[in-house]
């Protein structure tokens, strides 16, 4: 009984807070226009925004479907409001589960993921705030320093490597298909096709990887 109520509570909190956030996002241009008596052409806004919304929704939904079973719903509600999901929030959650020693998918892991994503949100918001106040112009020369610049340009591969390799070592048999399949696919379909369709490809690879691991488990090769 207790399990159920916690689950429902997470979704209630998630829905309410996301709705609050979305309403306040929309309120920014709305109030700005109202107070300054600037005309708003709502049909024209919707007409232009809708195709963009549709384009970004499909990949966004694919990502959400992929992330939820790993980081849990509570963490995902937060991650989607503040963004940087795959390059910050999911790694933060997975790392925290790893440090705490809870396997993804368990309830304790979901709790840890929620704490991790919340903490990550506070840090990013604080840094961006400082950036807006004074830090951005001070930090820019460091970022643009010719020796250091590759570090920031290659932050994402470094992040993926640090997150992924220990997992490969932990489950080497399970890793064969999900690591090699996308590499082969890149050579078959080309880099540009791969990167522009990555969120769809990801769903396919995840499903195949899960089926493959399920096979290994059924044949008692792992587990």
């Amino acid at each position, binding site marked *: 009984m207790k399990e159920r109520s916690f689950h429902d509570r*997470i*979704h209630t909190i998630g829905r309410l807070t996301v709705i609050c*956030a*979305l309403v306040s*996002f*929309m309120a920014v241009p709305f109030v*700005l226009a109202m107070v*300054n008596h600037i005309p*708003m052409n709502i049909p024209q806004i919707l007409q*232009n925004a809708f195709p963009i*919304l549709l384009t*970004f*929704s*499909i990949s*966004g939904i694919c990502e959400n479907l992929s992330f*939820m079973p*790993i980081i849990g719903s*509570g963490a995902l*509600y937060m991650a989607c*409001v*503040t*963004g940087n999901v*795959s390059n910050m929030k999911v790694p933060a959650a997975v790392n925290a589960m790893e440090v*705490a020693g809870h*396997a993804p998918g368990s*309830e304790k892991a979901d709790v*840890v993921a*929620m*704490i991790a994503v*919340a*903490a*990550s*949100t*506070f*840090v*990013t918001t604080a840094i*961006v705030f400082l*950036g807006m106040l004074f*830090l951005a112009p001070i930090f820019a020369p460091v970022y643009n320093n010719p020796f250091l610049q*590759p570090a920031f340009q*290659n*932050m994402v591969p*470094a992040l993926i*490597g*640090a997150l*992924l390799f*220990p*997992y*490969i070592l932990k489950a080497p048999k399970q890793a064969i298909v999900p*690591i090699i399949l996308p*590499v082969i*696919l890149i*050579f078959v379909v080309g*880099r540009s096709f*791969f990167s522009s369709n*990555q969120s769809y490809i990801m769903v396919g690879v*995840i499903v195949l*990887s899960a089926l493959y*691991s*399920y096979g290994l488990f059924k044949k008692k090769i792992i587990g």
Partner: protein
Amino acid sequence: MTHLKLANSPLMAVLCGLTILIVLLQPVIFMAAAFKRGKELNMTKEEMKEAARSSAIFSIIPSLPIIVSYLLLVPALGRYFPWLRLSVVGSAVYETMVANMAAEAFGLESITAGEIPVDVFVFILFVVTIGILGGNIFNVFFLKSYDKKVESLKSGNAALVPVITTAMFLGMYGTMAAPHLTNFSSLPAVAAILVAGVTAIGVNKLAAGRKKLKEFAFPLSMLVGMFASCIVNAMIV
């Protein structure tokens, strides 16, 4: 009134600041709920604090490039709107692209090509805001039922859950890793992923039994990988 005067007005600062505060309520509420639930599940306070600390330390590094991309948006969109957008869902690439698309719909060359009429500016703000809400709208309407499906699959297959979530994780980051692993035209990128990965394996070995090091293992390995890409780049040039 010019669009930049509007964008840099105190009203805009207040609107953006208030929105960020409202957004921050969410992690506060979730954090409290998580700590409460953790206690019920007999997790120690220290364990939960560790998760927060480890995640906070890691998040510093990927947050830094965001403040540089902030500078790219300021000339066209003013001081405050980019602050809001980069604090919430969105990125410099998305904002620039969509803001330009919206400006073009009004026959403007781009958002940086001089003065934007204020009504067009408001239009741009709306389009940029609405364009990226899809994932969140999905969550409000469908995440609960998707979660229920996943839960019902999980119950009765308890032994299989860690196997499948590991497989999903490997599929997810395997897909993201592939473009970098095969990026032969940029050796610094290949160096970053390989060195960070090998370092992470090494540090995790060392950290067995040392909780403090384990907390830092991930950000540390990432920094080593990033530094390796600098060295490789300096060697090539």
